[in-house]
């Protein structure tokens, strides 16, 4: 009788631990669970009016070394497409869309960037590229000084917590 209870308790404990571990994985919001990386590269195409800010943002993520973000060419499949929009009725400055088939998209809302300063423009590109690298939004105000904070800031390069998230995903 006692043995049966013990076994039943162990089985229930195993089941509870399984459910808990699944919940913990789902709650890991710092990783999106998807990205635009293909064989340690993101090959991008498209164009933006604020291309110099895009160039700065790409260079700053590339300085972390593990993933190479480079323009698309005839020898590679495009992983990510940049474009501009001009929408006044939405709350976003930039938007990353992951699609299971075809190139992912980054859309930049020039309605806001037109009146932004240079650091804020770079911040929007840096943030959206962070999503393309698989890093999720950080909503808590304790992260207000990092690139992946969910609101636009003037941060122009990955900060220590961004680098931790990046390395968790991409460092060998």
């Amino acid at each position, binding site marked *: *009788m006692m*043995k*049966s209870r013990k*076994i*039943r308790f162990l*089985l*229930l404990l195993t*089941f509870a631990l399984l459910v808990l571990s699944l919940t913990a994985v789902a709650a890991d919001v710092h990783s*999106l669970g*998807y990205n635009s990386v293909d064989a340690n590269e993101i090959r991008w195409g498209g164009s933006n009016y604020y291309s110099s800010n895009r160039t700065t943002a790409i260079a700053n993520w590339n300085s972390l070394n593990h993933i190479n973000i480079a323009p698309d060419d005839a020898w590679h499949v495009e992983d990510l497409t940049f*474009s501009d*929009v001009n*929408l*006044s*009725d*939405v*709350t*976003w*400055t*930039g*938007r*990353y*869309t*992951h*699609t*299971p088939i075809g190139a992912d*998209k980054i*859309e930049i*809302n020039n309605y*806001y960037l037109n*009146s*932004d*300063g240079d650091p*804020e423009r770079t911040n*929007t590109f840096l*943030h*959206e590229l962070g*999503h393309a690298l698989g890093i*999720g*939004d950080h*909503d808590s105000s304790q992260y207000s000084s990092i690139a992946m904070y*969910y*609101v*636009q*800031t*003037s941060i122009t390069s990955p900060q220590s917590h961004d680098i931790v998230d990046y390395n968790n995903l991409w460092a060998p």
Partner: protein
Amino acid sequence: MRIALNIKRTLIVLVGVLILITGYIYFVTPKQIVYHSYQWVIDPSDDSKLVGWAENVFIGKVNSQTGNKTRIGTPETQFSVEVLDNIKGKLDGTITVNQQGGIEQGKLYLFENDKMLEVGKTYLFITRYSKEENWHTLVPSYGDILIQDEMQKKSLMDRFINAHRTQIPFTSNQ
């Protein structure tokens, strides 16, 4: 013999629970969801900033879904909404509220995990008007708060009347 029977019974219950959970996830979750991640221009958790950005804050009842439009490559869904109470701005009668997201070619597009509006339900809406489209686009997740009862409605109205009083008008982040 009895121990074996108990283990068998426990295992059957556990397998049953697992089948139920798997079945629920399979049938309730749409087959393919496209997620958008975006950077906010304002902090939406700050009511004063949110109301300062918006042109209209109001209580409205969703009468029907009136349209679907693909804008910049992703679906948006339009609803006919009857305005019941204004908190910011002056709207009256029935207007078109636009929600970013919707279904296109069997794929569900979700913005900030914002659930699609339900016909017949009443919400507190926080919106901005688009002249080009002649619709009021709601703020995903923060600008379509479902109203469950009169007490919650009063508390929400008090909260956003106060936010209107202390609103921080939107300027660029420069």
